[in-house]
């Protein structure tokens, strides 16, 4: 199954690089959330279900929400 993990790693790095270069900030924030989600899958494959759950609940969900709230309050959320 290592080819699936390699594919997810490659996808994760591509999404991270795209989040750096995309122009719209809302898209960048959502892409960072997608990176968190893919990292959560990788944690599960490494045998760390606790860490995967924490990353999914806190990293992918709460961090994205906090970013979107900050985007809205500074007027960049178009």
């Amino acid at each position, binding site marked *: 199954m290592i080819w699936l993990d390699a594919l997810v790693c490659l996808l994760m790095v591509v999404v991270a690089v795209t989040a750096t270069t995309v122009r719209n900030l809302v898209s960048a924030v959502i892409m960072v959330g997608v990176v968190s989600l893919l990292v959560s899958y990788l944690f599960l494959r490494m045998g*760390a*279900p*606790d860490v*995967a*759950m*924490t990353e999914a*609940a*806190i990293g992918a*969900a*709460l961090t994205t*929400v*906090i970013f979107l*709230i*900050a985007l809205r*309050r500074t007027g960049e959320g178009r």
Partner: protein
Amino acid sequence: MTRTVVTLIALVAIAGLFFVLLGLGTPDELGTVSRHYVERGIAENRAANLVTSVVVNYRGLDTLGEVTVLFLSVTGAAFVLRRRERKPVDAKASRASEIVQTGARVLVAPIMLFGAYIFVHGHLTPGGGFQGGAVVASGVLLLLLADRERELPHGLMSWLESLSGFAFVVAGLAGLWVAGSFLANRGVLPLGEWNRLLSAGIIPVIYILIGLKVGSELAALLDVMMRGEAVAGGPSGDRHRGGGKRHGGGTSRRAGKKRTKGGRR
């Protein structure tokens, strides 16, 4: 331009360092300390989740520090954006759609129950206080999104958070009193049988306290970030409403343009 070039050179150097580190690879065997935690974990703690026994018992002081850091960051955020008065909410802009309102009414109770399940069973299944607290905070976020004028009970949340943190320290002191070391697991509560709900001594109690504390803390953080207004100390308080006219002392400043060097108040 030199900034970009220097940054790129630094990044290339760091990439080279990483390449060297990648050649070392990852270890193949458990270290000495980890071997002790793994082999003696169930005999000493009776918690089926070894990560829980490491987080709460063997490295319990780190968890106390983590709870403190989270508390400090939420307090700092609430201090910067504290609410002075309720901002008058625009009635048309604040109605959530019908789906969100109905869905929130249906879903909030199962989400809270799920969060409570996660942190009560932290010693048996993957999970624990932090994950359960985050899920509970997500449930509160759903409530906030469905009804923009809902006021969260800040007094209750503040009391819950403070009492949970205090009870965590009291549990550690109880371990000190009974067994001789802070946050010890021997002797305060019976260890019980492995893989049952009422087992593992004081670990489930501590995780329940952490879950309540983190849940109320993150919910308060979300509420402060969504609704908090900076207490006006000058021209900032009227930026959203006035659009140009401002009162309060200080030098005049023009938004967005370069300001003159010096001449600060």
